[in-house]
């Protein structure tokens, strides 16, 4: 079943490349993927917990290298995110002028890569699936992007290529840190081995820093973040939705799934560095965001900034903090996808998306004004949205970090992070005012809301966001037991 969720988009992508109708096949495949994921989510036995739906196919038995998939609560929630955002991204795709089929195939490749990475329980495939997205992203931005698209495409590809390579070295180092007799690529086995203390504390520091930098580049950890805003700004809206919403979560997921359980001592010894960098994400990038004059760059920088909160939850190394991080990952994926989708609507009218070229749009396009407002509030972290639940949980977690971490550093970082909420309120509300409030100019008054058929992906994203905001327990019930199992006792 999991393999089907992963390979359905891949097969659809190949079918499209071979001539199947692009949009129809893509929507069909992602809808089916969504339904399957929903089944997997509802079929998961929460009482039993642990990894379920496991299936394996040996690749190199001598190395204990297998194609192995399986899901626990955490990966299910991430898979669910992938499926929703894919469906929304494919649906909101505007009319593609050139090479429509290649466009949809690329989107599906990215989705398959993300789904594969979240569902893999084998280090090798966990890594390999993520990289499936690299070349499609390069093509998507270069072919259908806007503005400085060539520069942006090169930047993201080289950065991510480098990040993945650093990550690869880290994973290899981790694999070799286990004594030869018990080496395995299987994450579940590795986790059990690590719980017995098979990787000595002093050997954890080096693989962890490789992993932190490798994943960090993929997540746009400050100061490795400069690829993200221009790439999201010039990418076509569906690509930005998938990349900022789903793919970037791969790095965070990797930290939670691989680095924390296997190298907890390494994580503790580098916590000081992570705290400094994440404050850079929140405060430095936050101020950079305030200075943006274009909506697409603003959203790009804001997505970089919000990574800082998630890092804070992960750094705290306790169940509350990491669960909050997971919840915020989910929430941020939905809210940024909704924002980019609406930025895509606006781009059709005003290609440059300069903030001062709008004004009063809420009168001409009330639906857009309302939903954009909801998504913007969600992104700031207003109560009622899942982002708020996630951020609050993270702050609670960060105030009482795991044993062995210096609490005063965490207090300081949390205080900075709280100010970050103010910073994000400033830029989001200013952007909202500039675009939607006031009296519409002559040409703005002629604009209208997007067609009804294009609206419901955004509605879907926001509905799930509200649901998770009002009843975060529904999602935490999946996430929390998995995280309890992941974190060292």
């Amino acid at each position, binding site marked *: *079943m999991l393999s089907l969720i992963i390979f359905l988009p891949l097969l659809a992508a190949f079918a499209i490349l071979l001539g199947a109708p692009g949009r129809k096949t893509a929507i069909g495949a992602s809808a089916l993927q969504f339904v399957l994921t929903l089944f997997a989510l509802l079929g998961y036995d929460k009482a039993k917990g642990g990894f*379920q*739906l*496991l*299936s*394996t196919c040996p*690749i*190199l038995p*001598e*190395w204990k290298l297998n194609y192995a998939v399986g899901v626990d609560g955490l990966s299910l929630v991430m898979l669910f995110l992938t499926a929703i955002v894919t469906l929304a991204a494919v649906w909101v795709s505007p009319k593609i002028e050139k*090479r429509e089929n*290649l466009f949809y195939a690329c989107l599906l490749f990215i989705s398959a890569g993300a789904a594969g990475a979240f569902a893999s329980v084998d280090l090798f495939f966990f*890594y*390999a*699936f993520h*990289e*499936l997205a*690299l*070349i499609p992203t*390069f*093509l998507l931005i*270069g*072919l259908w992007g806007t503005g400085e698209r*060539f520069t942006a*495409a*090169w930047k993201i*590809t*080289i950065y991510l*290529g*480098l990040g993945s*390579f*650093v990550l*690869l*070295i880290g994973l*290899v*180092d981790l694999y*070799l840190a286990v004594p030869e007799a018990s080496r395995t690529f299987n994450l579940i086995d590795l986790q059990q081995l690590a719980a017995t203390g098979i990787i000595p504390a002093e050997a954890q520091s080096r693989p962890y820093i490789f992993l932190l930098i490798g994943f960090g580049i993929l997540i746009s950890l400050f100061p490795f973040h400069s690829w993200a805003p221009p790439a999201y700004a010039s990418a076509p809206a569906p690509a930005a939705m998938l990349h900022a919403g789903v793919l970037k979560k791969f790095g965070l997921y990797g930290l939670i799934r691989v680095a924390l359980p296997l190298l907890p001592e390494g994580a503790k010894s580098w916590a000081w560095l992570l705290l400094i960098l994440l404050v850079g994400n929140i405060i430095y990038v936050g101020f950079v965001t305030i200075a943006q004059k274009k909506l697409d760059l603003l959203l790009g920088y804001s997505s970089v900034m919000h990574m800082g909160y998630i890092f804070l939850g992960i750094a705290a190394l306790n169940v509350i903090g990491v669960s909050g991080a997971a919840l915020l990952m989910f929430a941020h994926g939905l809210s940024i996808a909704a924002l980019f989708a609406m930025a895509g609507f606006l781009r059709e009218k005003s290609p440059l998306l300069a903030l001062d070229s709008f004004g009063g749009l809420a009168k001409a396009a009330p639906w857009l004004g309302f939903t954009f407002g909801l998504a913007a509030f969600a992104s700031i972290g207003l109560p009622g949205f899942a982002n708020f639940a996630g951020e609050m949980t993270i702050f609670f977690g960060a105030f009482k970090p795991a044993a062995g971490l210096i609490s005063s550093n965490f207090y300081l970082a949390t205080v900075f992070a709280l100010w970050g909420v103010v910073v994000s309120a400033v830029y989001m509300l200013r952007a909202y005012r500039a675009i939607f409030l006031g009296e519409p100019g002559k040409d703005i008054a002629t604009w209208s809301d997007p067609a009804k058929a294009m609206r419901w992906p955004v509605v879907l994203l926001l509905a799930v966001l509200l649901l998770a905001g009002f009843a975060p327990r529904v999602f935490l019930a999946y996430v929390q037991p998995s995280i309890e199992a992941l974190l060292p006792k």
Partner: protein
Amino acid sequence: MIDSIFLEIAVLLLGIYMLLAESFSKSDDKRGLAKTAIVILTALIGFSFFARVNPAGTDLAKIFYSADPIAFFFKRIALLTTIIVLIMSLEYKSVLAKFIPGVTPGAGLGEFYSLPVFTCAGLMFMASAVDFLLIFVSLELVTISFYVLVAYMRRQSASLEAGVKYLILGALSTGFLVYGITWIFGVTGETNLAAITHVLQTKTVDHAPLLFGIVLVLIGLGFKVAAAPFQIWVPDVYQGAPTPITAFLSVGSKAAGFVVLLRVLVPFLVVPEVSTKVLALLGIMAGATLIYGNLAALPQDNFKRLLAYSSIAHAGYLLVAVASFQSTEASLGSTGVAVGYYLAGYLLMTLLSFLVMIVVAKHSRGDDILHFNGLAKRSPFLAFGLLVAMMSLAGVPSTAGFVGKFLVFLTAVQMQKYTLIGIGFVTVAAGFYYYLRVVAAMYWQEPTDNTPIVIAPLTRFAIGVLILLIFVFGIFPKPIVNSLRGEPPVITVVEPHVAEK
């Protein structure tokens, strides 16, 4: 079961037959010969699976020649390369004919098809050679046929220039190699690698002259595999030579150089004092080759020249594995497996790039990167093929190139070569840029001329097979890893699938 030496004999006979048939045939078109050779060489790959695995023994006939799994592996690489080079030569005929004087239109083309077969025989001998004498003789058989082939387009000055450069530097490197062999012989009194190992293990020998000899051999082999600082000849020769020969040079010559390097190193690594120095030297060579090859590739605008630099870059990655040498027997994660896998992947992706390039260059009349503009519109199939080749060269997972890189850096991390890994960070990032430039040209740019490209069926078939193999080896590494480790193929009973527990 046949003796593996018959494979080489068959290839040699095929070469001689082709020469004779060429001289006596009345027809102007010599392409039939190449097609015959392709069929026979393909059959030989099949036969090679029935040949006896028979490592070098003590009786006279077997002192020189070892038929171990690694040898078979490289023999198949040599055969496959030759087949694809012949397919390329068929595509290349029109270009070739332009630059060769002749009374009749097809005159002088026959040797172009038969010489690669002789080179192939040399490569196959080299794969099995375990004695410096046989190593030297087979190396010369390869190199001398290459001298002729590189300068084959007599009317084109670039080809002649390439030929002269290759001849002079090749002769020089041969000199180094022979001189090194004599020094090693002077110290140990043996030319056989197994005997040298025995001498070094049992007697104490003077290390200084031994090291001097090894360094000279390394210089000689460094020329062959295009390792820095002996790589200066590569770009000019690769660019000037006829394209099929460039492909042959960059794949066959490199594979042979590395198998010899691996074999030659083993005896000297038994002496700790010598081995640390030799490995340190190899580490420096690896670092320099990586930096030079990757950084110099960045500004290239000609695709053929770009591939020349890429060939240097990949020699660097291979040297990383050699410099992190470990375990003489072919265990998983050993240098032998890493180098073998890397070379197999390198063969597929490089031949694929050259094959696509020949077809495109024929239609676009040039092999600069801008001649690939908009290829995705003119021929989606060719563009996809080149996309796969570039992904694999850059090391994107699910391709053969990635698994190779993974194994190489696995050995490097295992041996704690962190300086080389640090250099690797820079060069891998550089690699993404220069390989994807071609992809950007193919997919982002608009074509200057919209005529679709026609591909010959044989070429289309070869491209398809290469694409498929790149993915298969990128996802199922097991067959190659096993053939390198010499396990007999075991047919396992497939258990009922226990999924969905």
